[in-house]
């Protein structure tokens, strides 16, 4: 296809794709570099802590596994929301966006619980290298989830005002891309930090 206007595109662009979507993908590319730097810092600093607690002593894999499942579910609800508005189902869009936001909040609650448990074991940003790299990595990820939940809230508000339609639903695509990326990063973090 070489048409200059992509679906829902309001203006002609050089690459024939929506500028907003191109911008989001560029953002996600830069976020990939950002999280790569945090992940590799965690990896190379692993085992170098002079004092405890260590990952084996501190980390709660079952709790985090449930949290991981919650985030995976939220990706399904997010893509279902997009599929709903693509076929013109505005009620379905709102329902699945609410579900996604609630699952996001559930994930953040799980993170808060985990952070509290870790703090009770004496782990903190300044405790040791494990604490510093762990909280920096998972803290930044949590902040991204929070930003995503807020963003979904804005899209939801627009959907309730009738501002998201089958013909114009780029807002849902954009927040969806961001949300799936946040899930993708957590998939890597869960494996690298908790399982390996």
């Amino acid at each position, binding site marked *: 296809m070489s048409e200059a206007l992509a679906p829902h595109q309001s203006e002609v662009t050089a690459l024939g*794709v929506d500028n907003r979507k*191109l911008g989001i*993908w560029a953002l996600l*590319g830069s976020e990939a570099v950002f999280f*790569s730097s945090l992940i590799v810092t965690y990896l*190379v600093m692993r*085992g170098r802590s002079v004092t405890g607690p260590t990952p084996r002593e501190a980390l709660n894999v079952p709790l985090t596994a449930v949290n991981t499942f919650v985030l995976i579910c939220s990706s399904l609800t997010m893509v279902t929301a997009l599929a709903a508005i693509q076929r013109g189902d505005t009620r379905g869009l709102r329902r699945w966006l609410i579900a996604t936001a609630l699952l996001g909040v559930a994930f953040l609650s799980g993170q808060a619980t985990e952070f509290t448990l870790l703090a009770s074991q004496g782990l903190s940003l300044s405790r040791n290298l494990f604490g510093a790299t762990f909280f920096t990595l998972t803290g930044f990820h949590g902040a991204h989830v929070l930003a995503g939940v807020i963003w979904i809230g804005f899209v939801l508000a627009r959907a309730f005002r009738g501002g998201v339609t089958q013909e114009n639903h780029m807002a849902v695509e954009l927040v969806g891309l961001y949300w799936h990326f946040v899930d993708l990063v957590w998939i890597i973090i869960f494996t690298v930090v908790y399982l390996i």
Partner: protein
Amino acid sequence: METSRRMQRTYLGVFVALAVLTVFEIAVTYLPVPRIPVLVPLALIKAGLVALFYMHLKYDRRVFGLIFGAGLLMGIGLILSLIALFAPTLVDVK
């Protein structure tokens, strides 16, 4: 509508795959097998499923994959470079 139902089945299939792979990953940690050669590829498969199907890279214009892929390549390069730099001093933990 038929395309929509087919896509919904795909999304559900990906979800089931992600869930099953996650359970499998956790199970691997209880087995006497080397973790990195098993878990890293599994994580990459899961990430690939999310990127290709949920983020629609498989169905969308190639330029999006190129843009994202450029960032991914830089990130992977960064990871490999620093691991190589610190390789002599990396500690086997747990």
